[in-house]
């Protein structure tokens, strides 16, 4: 099932990019998709298939929410940049990720990094080390708002 | 002044060429020599591409509604030249790897006297 899904996805992507539908070019497309699948297959043999994030409606809601976060934190950081220098009070902290299911932790860490002001420096089994431009950002993060949103994705409402 | 402005692309070519050439000659580290060689080759690519420019001509990829294009031939030639450049770099770097393994260093002054010694 997994292979079929990817083959279709890559095929569509190939056509989107090329925009040509002549048989010869389609043939080349098929060949390149096939090669990628072969390589993908070999890679799959390397590490087990992680349960992908399911792209349902709640995911898109999360994305929009994240964009909002990005905008606000960017504005915040930009203000910081334009203010006199020395106003930044960087901080480094470890935040527990025990409650977030394994396969969503990457999304959580990326979301932290994506929103300017906070940067996930390291991700291990129990914690994500976060570096923040301003100390309060860490505490804001600690409140778990983003954590909550990520968990919602998995459908487990605590 | 307009001598420089009108021919700014050729000035870039000359600058790249000379800096690449200088690096090739003066660099002690073999990898840097290859970097210099690449810069030197890139300057030639710039020369060819800029000679192909037709004033008012768009990029030489066929698209509807565009009648005037720049001359595609230099671009095609340079595609080949890039491939040649990449091949040369590949051979050069593989030689550097083997020199490192054989001499333990890629600094030209260090392995110069290694051989004269034996």
């Amino acid at each position, binding site marked *: 099932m997994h292979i079929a899904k990817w083959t279709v996805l890559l095929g569509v992507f190939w056509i989107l990019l090329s925009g040509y539908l002549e048989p010869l070019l389609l043939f080349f497309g098929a060949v390149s998709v096939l090669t990628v699948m072969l390589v993908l297959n070999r890679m799959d043999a390397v590490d087990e298939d992680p349960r992908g994030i399911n792209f349902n409606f709640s995911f898109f809601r999360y994305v929009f929410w994240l964009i909002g976060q990005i905008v606000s934190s960017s504005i915040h950081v930009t203000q910081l940049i334009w203010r006199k220098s020395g106003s930044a009070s960087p901080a480094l902290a470890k935040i527990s990720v025990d409650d977030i299911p394994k396969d969503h932790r990457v999304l959580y860490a990326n979301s932290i*990094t994506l929103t300017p002001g906070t*940067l996930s420096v390291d991700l291990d089994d129990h914690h994500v080390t976060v570096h923040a431009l301003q100390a309060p950002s860490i505490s804001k993060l600690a409140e778990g708002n983003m954590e909550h949103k990520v968990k919602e994705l998995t459908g487990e409402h605590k | 002044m307009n001598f420089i402005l009108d021919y700014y692309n050729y000035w870039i070519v000359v600058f790249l060429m000379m800096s690449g050439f200088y690096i090739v000659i003066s660099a002690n580290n073999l990898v840097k020599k290859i970097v210099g060689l690449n810069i030197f080759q890139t300057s030639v690519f710039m020369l060819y591409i800029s000679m192909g420019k037709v004033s008012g001509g768009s990029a030489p990829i066929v698209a509807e509604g565009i009648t005037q294009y720049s001359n595609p031939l230099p671009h095609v030639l340079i595609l080949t030249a890039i491939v040649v450049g990449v091949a040369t770099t590949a051979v050069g770097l593989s030689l550097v790897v083997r020199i490192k393994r054989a001499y333990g260093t890629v600094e030209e002054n260090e392995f110069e006297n290694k051989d004269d010694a034996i």
Partner: protein
Amino acid sequence: MFIIDIISSILLLAGAFFGLSGAIGLFKFPDFFTRVHAASVTDSISALLIVGGLLLQTSFDLNTAKLMFILIFLMITSPTASHALAKSARHSGLLALAESKGKPQGKSTNG
């Protein structure tokens, strides 16, 4: 159709503005990790706005798809890159300003 151009211009200019401020931040901030934040500004908001502005220029065709792909690709890869960079720096022992100044670390929640 005039409206779209205006919005697009606004988005583009905003994107440009954030890009420039991020670049300036690159010079103003004291240590490496703070500079990563400045850089991520340009990677995230500036890219979003500029690509958004460009999207409005396209008439919902192949180019739109390509732009969307670029945006999605950037949104996924730039945080990963920043993370990898920071992690690599950290692993090689580069101290963040916070640590080097002995400031109490931020309140760490439940262990």
